[in-house]
């Protein structure tokens, strides 16, 4: 088998996540499509390529993205894609309903690029404005996604 072919084969690893409050059940997921690693990874900074709210993730692709989600859809996902990922690291998805932390998910990232997402299950009491802060382990905020859970 050629080395380039071998390089293209990667495994997906699930992200570890914490369930912090019962109102929003979060499902930790992780996935990373295989891609060639650049030679100067260590010198680069972790970069957020894409962050998007969606109803679900299928084949590492966000499905039904939007900014307002009906509670009847049952769940909502925060999909993030990082590139480059210089070294394995950890990021967090912090879910806030209004200004109250609802849940926080710990997600692992692996070189050279990684896509991952967190999800919460929706209940009637979850209606209202939400935001998800995507931060690293040092508290650096990559992005804040704002959306609403509606009828």
């Amino acid at each position, binding site marked *: 088998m050629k080395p380039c072919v071998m390089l293209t084969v990667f495994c997906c690893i699930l992200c570890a996540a914490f369930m912090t409050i019962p109102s929003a059940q979060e499902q930790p997921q992780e996935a990373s499509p295989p891609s060639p690693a650049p030679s100067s990874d260590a010198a680069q900074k972790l970069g957020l390529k*894409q962050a*998007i709210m969606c109803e679900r993730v299928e084949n590492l692709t*966000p499905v039904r993205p939007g900014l307002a989600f009906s509670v009847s859809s049952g769940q909502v996902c925060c999909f993030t894609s990082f590139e480059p990922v210089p070294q394995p690291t950890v990021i967090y998805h912090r879910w806030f309903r*209004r*200004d109250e932390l609802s849940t926080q998910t710990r997600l692992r990232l692996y070189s050279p690029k990684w896509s991952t997402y967190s999800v919460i299950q929706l209940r009637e009491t979850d209606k209202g404005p939400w935001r998800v802060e995507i931060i690293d382990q040092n508290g650096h905020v990559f992005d804040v996604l704002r959306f*609403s859970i509606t*009828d």
Partner: protein
Amino acid sequence: MTRLIAFLSSVRWQDIVDILINSYILLRVYILFQGTNAFRVLVGITSLWILQEVAASIGLILTSWAIRGITAAAAIIIIVVFRNEIRTALQVRNLKAFLWGFPNREQTTPVDVITESVFQMAKRRTGALIVFPGKEDLGEAIHGGLSWNGTVSPEMLLSIFWPQNPVHDGAIIINGSRITEVGVLLPLSQRQDLPSYYGTRHRAAVGLSERTDALVVVVSEERGRVSIAKDYTLKPVIDSEELAQAIRKHLNFPDISPARQHERERLKLVVAAGLSLLIMTGIWFGFTRSQDTIIALNVPIEYVNRPANYEILDTSVDEARLQLFGSSALIKSLKQGQVGVRIDLSKAAEGRNTFTITQDDIILPPGVSLNKIQPAVIDVTLDIPTTRELPIQVDWVGRLPENMVLSSVTVTPETVKVIGGSKTLEKVSTVYTAPVRLDSLTRSGSVTTQVVLSPPSLRVASASPEKVTIQYLLSERNSPAKK
């Protein structure tokens, strides 16, 4: 003895001033209204009121209610019936005279001159009509008349009633030593029982005596007789002495020397002043010293002297429950605003401050005392006001049509400056708009709404707008998603 000293030490200077002021008011009422019918009725009403209080205190329910009704009705009637007297008593030249002066007891009316002139006119068969006003105002009873203001003298009287004089048919009004008006038309009596030989002059005299407390002297032109009309009656007068006595009595002229009269007046005033003081002291003690009633009130707590750089962030209670006691009259008359709890924050520091409510913090009207307060301790949290720029997020509500997706939202401006306590603002990271409904959205567009600050202690800085514009992009379910 000890109780007396304790009692005297509990009397404040304000209480003494209170009693003195009200005693003086009572004395002034007496001075202004003494001798009038209104005053007599007023005394009657006061007696009724006392009777009603006694009846109520011993449990005579029906009697106390009946007397209360009569007293209320009488109070209205006195104003209507005695309006002229009240007006005359209150008609003084200036405030000083109202507050300090004494109504002039006009003693200069030359009664002898008048009586001699009257009988001289009677001898000559010259008709005359002379009015001596009493306490009541004649304004509404008489008509016409010319202002004269001449000094009373036999010549003056004879010339006014001389038959060739144009005003000889009317009446004259004598106030003190002056003829104030001539040619005055008096109201005619409608009585049927007057003798037929009484002419218009006599009917006019009786008519005025029916409506007012004035004394009217009539000289008959036909028969040369002198009569006096007062209090509905017309009485013939035989000689000048009898007439003089009647006039003196009407004018309250004393039969004693002026010096003696002055002495008597002074004594009367001293007694009246003493009685006023006694009555008011009694009323005051009745009102303020009995402590037979207890009441519980919920009173809002007022926080004063807050340091300028702090804001009140939170208080453990907003109102206190005060249990007060005092006389039933004072307790019943308590009004909103008379009772208060005022906490001085001048020595408060940032963070939580605990205050014990003391007697000094409670505002009570005189005569009302504090029995108990709940809670006795309150917590006040102070914070330093600060400004923070916060992002604005749309609060979407409702539901989009199934085939539509809200794919992009832009809020203008993106942020708003908010002023509030630093500790409050620490917990706030986003400002939300008022709810915006999704149901009515069918295509992309924009909407203007206002921001809603929570908690309400926050406010938008003057430089920041309170309204924001939301531009939203709607797309079909299958169209490419945008962040």
